[in-house]
């Protein structure tokens, strides 16, 4: 990792606004595309208490180009399916879509290593997939079925996967957990870094600042990632935050502002963060400027506190998928046919999982009293009819 950073660091463009660079043509090896690699300029980062930031030029191989495209597409598709399932009343309760923000998760994941960990809030469907859950595992959790990643007991906000410490329903609560997970990485010496994600609204919860302080005090390998999508529910960031420079709100923690609509920017910035944290320099704050297309949750049409024009404008000019697609096509890293093929594959996969998520059975009512404790001292769980308690059972496999 550290090998990448110094070599690209000298390409740092400072504060000058750079345009998308000309592709660097190399020999073709991929199946259909004409180039095997191209490099791209990244919109300048804003830095807080950092002399050098992440690489401002990113190299992309045609192979990676397709992989990133597929992940972006599948995240979007999962959310479209979730929205439809919700409208069909098959998903009930709360459901928060990630559409518009895909480049944050996909770019970060592309830079992360197997040892790294993530924790986020309730906008967690895409992250769960990227961390290794199947599309069915995600969608059937949303529909409350046994094949769901949490056996249907959590629902939309409570998805988990290996090294993915979950979606979290209490705004801000996940951030101190991230500091704790970061401490565990350091203590165990496993070289891992924790990424704790939260929104621009959550950035005003007091516990974030408690977490910042602990992380810096003990120099934990921990990156606080603010996904700034402009709104916390119906409140715009200007109306909720005395400072909207979220990347600088760690004060004594260095910070980076990143264009969260550019998957290459988020990837390069994350590489930089991993390098920083693994070299023992302590935590970072990373602000990803992004946008959510849907309302806050399915019950919010999302148009009473912002204009339809605003949403349209972002879709047309900054969409993380369309803009990336244009980039890889114009740089000949992929052909339209290849992307169409991916689109079809993604559609098939998500459609199949959607169908399956509707017909999978729910868990039995005996699991209502499952996994409340590791071993329940009193094996019965009381309530409702005192004469008919439920037996406490252990459902999860223990190691």
């Amino acid at each position, binding site marked *: 990792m550290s090998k990448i950073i110094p070599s690209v660091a000298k390409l740092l463009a400072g504060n000058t606004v750079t345009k998308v660079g000309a592709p660097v043509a190399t020999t073709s090896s991929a199946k259909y595309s004409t180039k095997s690699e191209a490099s791209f300029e990244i919109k300048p980062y804003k830095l807080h208490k950092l002399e050098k930031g992440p690489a401002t030029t990113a190299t992309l191989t045609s192979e990676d180009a397709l992989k990133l495209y597929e992940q972006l597409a599948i995240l979007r598709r999962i959310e479209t399916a979730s929205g439809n399932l919700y409208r069909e009343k098959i998903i009930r*309760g709360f459901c928060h879509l990630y559409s518009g923000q895909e480049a944050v998760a996909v770019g970060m994941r592309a830079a992360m290593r197997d040892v790294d960990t993530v924790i986020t809030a309730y906008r967690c469907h895409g992250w769960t997939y990227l961390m290794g859950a199947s599309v069915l595992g995600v969608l059937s959790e949303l529909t409350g079925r046994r094949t769901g990643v949490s056996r249907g*007991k959590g*629902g939309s906000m409570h998805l988990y996967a290996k090294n993915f410490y979950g979606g979290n329903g*209490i705004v801000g609560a996940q951030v101190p957990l991230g500091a704790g997970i970061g401490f565990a990485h350091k203590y165990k010496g496993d070289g891992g870094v924790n990424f704790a994600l939260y929104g621009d609204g959550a950035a005003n919860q007091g*516990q974030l600042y408690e977490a910042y302080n602990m992380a810096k005090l003990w120099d934990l390998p921990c990156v606080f990632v603010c996904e700034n999508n402009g709104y916390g*529910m119906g409140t715009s960031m200007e109306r909720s935050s005395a400072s909207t420079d979220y990347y600088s709100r760690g004060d004594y923690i260095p910070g980076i502002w990143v264009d969260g609509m550019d998957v290459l920017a988020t990837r390069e910035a994350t590489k930089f963060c991993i390098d920083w944290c693994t070299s023992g320099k302590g935590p970072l704050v990373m602000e990803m400027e992004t946008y959510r297309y849907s309302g806050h949750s399915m019950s919010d049409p999302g148009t009473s506190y912002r204009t339809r024009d605003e949403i349209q404008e972002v879709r047309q000019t900054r969409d993380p998928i369309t803009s990336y697609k244009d980039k890889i096509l114009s740089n000949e890293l992929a052909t339209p046919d290849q992307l169409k093929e991916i689109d079809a594959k993604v559609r098939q996969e998500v459609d199949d999982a959607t169908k399956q998520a509707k017909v999978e059975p729910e868990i039995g009512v005996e699991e209502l009293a499952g996994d*409340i404790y590791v071993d329940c001292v009193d094996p019965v769980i009381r309530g*409702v*009819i005192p004469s008919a308690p439920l037996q406490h059972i252990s459902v999860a496999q223990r190691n």
Partner: protein
Amino acid sequence: MASLVTKKSVLLARLVKNVGDCTKRLSSHFIYYPDNEKPVEGETTKMNMMQAINNAMDLTLKNDPTAVLFGEDVAFGGVFRCALGLQEKYGKDRVFNTPLCEQGIAGFGIGLATAGATAIAEIQFADYIFPAFDQIINEAAKVRYRSGGQFDCGALTIRTPCSAVGHGGLYHSQSPEAFFAHVPGLRVVVPRGPITAKGLLLSCIREKDPCVFLEPKILYRSAAEEVPVEDYTIPLGKAQVLREGDAATLIGWGTQVHVLLEVAQIAEEKLGVKCDVIDLQSILPWDEDTVCNSVKKTGRCLIAHEAPLTSGFGAELAATIQEECFLHLEAPISRVTGWDAPFPHVFEPFYLPDKWRCYQSLTEMLNY
């Protein structure tokens, strides 16, 4: 042991069947019984509970120039729209959004109220009140006591939506009244519908002690009745007897009152017995006289709440009732409640103390 197990599983099977029959997944688990009696004479308008709460706050802002209303997204009405239109009417300096910071909201409200303003704070969901727990328990409840009566934050009312809504899952369904009922210095109030919501909220706002006002969110829109348009209050610390009888006393609050009203009706139709149904309304302090007089009359008592059994507020009621009414009791006091489990996403119908579970407990109690 073996027979015990079979008995349990038969009961469980019956329970599951009942739930399957009567609460198709996610449809509401109760019938709303509107209030027919008006607390005051005069003009009425049909309002749902959201509108009645809006009306109470509107009257407060109109008549009390020190009153302010704040909370997450309150400027455009709040997620349940209880504050709808109030910012336009009373201005941005009196009705405003706060950032997303419950501990800060509560502490800010305490300071504001201590300095003399009427502070109405909205916490978006009762499940999100826990970041504010310290401020409510250690500051709000104790200011008067620890300052020897020199300071108080009695002009603070914290409103928050609570309880099951049909599909809320872990963090949009909890009923935290018992946590707050453990704290001397607070008042805890839960309305059962529009008329009581307006009258009790106005009482809380004017009460000179800090109040936690828990609004069963499923009633915001589903409960509608003719509400007096003028200003009126309903006394705090008083329960209401909604239906009278001599066979048993059924006690609940919030949504559960409606479940118990239906249980009493079923018992009358099927068994020919009549029950007292009591809406406790005020959880802290609660109306010991009304409750104990009723239990002395009936000799049997069933308490039902959505919150889990262990250390639920039913435990406090049961302990006091057995102490006060011991020689009158014909059967053990029965509690029908949520399970001692987190509120599950897929099992809401199984979790709730619905009418069939209450009815079963009632018949067991009558046959004791």
